[in-house]
């Protein structure tokens, strides 16, 4: 078994020690001493398993099983323990990556929406407000923004489409900024404790699940609009759904890449 900086392919003993390291509280000396004690314990248990004829992986699994959960060694309940600085850093990275990717995906949905707008028109992208829900002043404002038309509904749709594009662009820019922040923070927080505070690929797994759920929700909404409103206003959920699907695929591929078995 091999190990890397992310801790993705460590042996079971190394993984256990990584989890213990980020869970222990106390002075640096207490932490060092407990780590040394527990490592010696685990190595002894593995040696005992090997002497009994077990293969290395099985001896490790048995040693980890016998020593019990990490919170047994720390003496603190697992859920009540204070989150360590490494855990906070890792969660910050997760939020930055998933949030950044989500907002960027909304920006990308705006690009897809722009294509829908060019191909299928404004009525596909956004639905008009029901009659009676807007005033003459609203109409005047919309028509002023779209001098080429005399129809209030057409001007309203153009205005809504413009707003949608603007929001998507803003989300995309914010998302890219968050992703840039993620890259910068990840460069600074490359210490082993941060990298192993959560399982390797945690952020990618969270991102894949959230993006997948968002895609399903958007496609269901779009399909509902297609069947009940003849597709008027279905463009936004379709574009969001497509973008979310692409995001889920990217996160899944990243997860597979991170969790791939290490070369011998």
């Amino acid at each position, binding site marked *: 078994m091999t190990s890397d900086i992310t801790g993705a392919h460590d042996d079971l003993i190394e993984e256990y020690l990584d989890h213990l390291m980020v869970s222990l509280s106390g002075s640096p000396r207490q932490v060092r001493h*407990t780590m040394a004690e*527990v490592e010696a*314990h685990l190595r*002894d248990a593995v040696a005992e398993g090997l002497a009994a004829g077990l293969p290395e992986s099985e001896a490790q699994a048995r040693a980890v099983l*016998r020593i019990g959960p990490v919170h*047994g060694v720390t*003496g603190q309940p697992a859920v009540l323990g204070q989150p360590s600085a490494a855990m906070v850093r890792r969660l910050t990275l997760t939020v930055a990556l998933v949030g950044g990717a989500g907002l960027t995906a909304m920006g990308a949905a705006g690009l897809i929406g722009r294509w829908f707008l060019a191909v299928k028109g404004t009525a596909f992208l956004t639905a008009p407000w029901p009659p009676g829900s807007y005033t003459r002043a609203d109409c005047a404002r919309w028509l002023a923004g779209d001098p080429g038309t005399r129809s209030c509904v057409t001007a309203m749709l153009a205005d809504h489409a413009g707003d949608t594009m603007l929001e998507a662009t803003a989300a995309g820019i914010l998302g890219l900024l968050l992703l840039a922040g993620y890259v910068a923070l990840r460069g600074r927080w490359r210490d082993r404790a941060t990298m192993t505070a959560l399982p390797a690929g945690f952020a990618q797994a969270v991102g894949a699940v959230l993006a997948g759920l968002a895609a399903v929700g958007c496609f269901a909404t779009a399909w509902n609009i297609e069947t009940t409103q003849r597709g008027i206003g279905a463009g936004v959920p379709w574009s969001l759904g497509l973008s979310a699907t692409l995001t889920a695929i990217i996160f899944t591929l990243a997860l597979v890449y991170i969790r791939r078995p290490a070369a011998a």
Partner: protein
Amino acid sequence: MRSEKLKGHLDLLLLSVLSRGPGHGYEIITRLRDRSDGAFELPEGTVYPALHRLEEAGLLASAWDVVSGRRRRIYRLTTAGEAALAAEANQWREFSTSMARVLGAAVTRALRPQAAAGGPA
């Protein structure tokens, strides 16, 4: 035996194991398991917070040493630990004797109807 039941007596068990001589964590667990014929099995990691707590209380002392090529923390009983072990062991004996008396009477009563039912008609 369930590890929850052992937790309340872990300190006494650790003091008792160490009264036979100093030892490191893995050795202590092994001795505990061997001396109880495997009956006392608990998540092995739980001995460390207990050992550290007993050391803080002054009942154990520890020193680092290299044994079998590995650096290990060897625990030994202090004089205060010996006294605490004697006191705890005494209390346990009294408790155990009383429990045996109560349980003995209850078990005898519980078994009597069964014996009568199972006897010749």
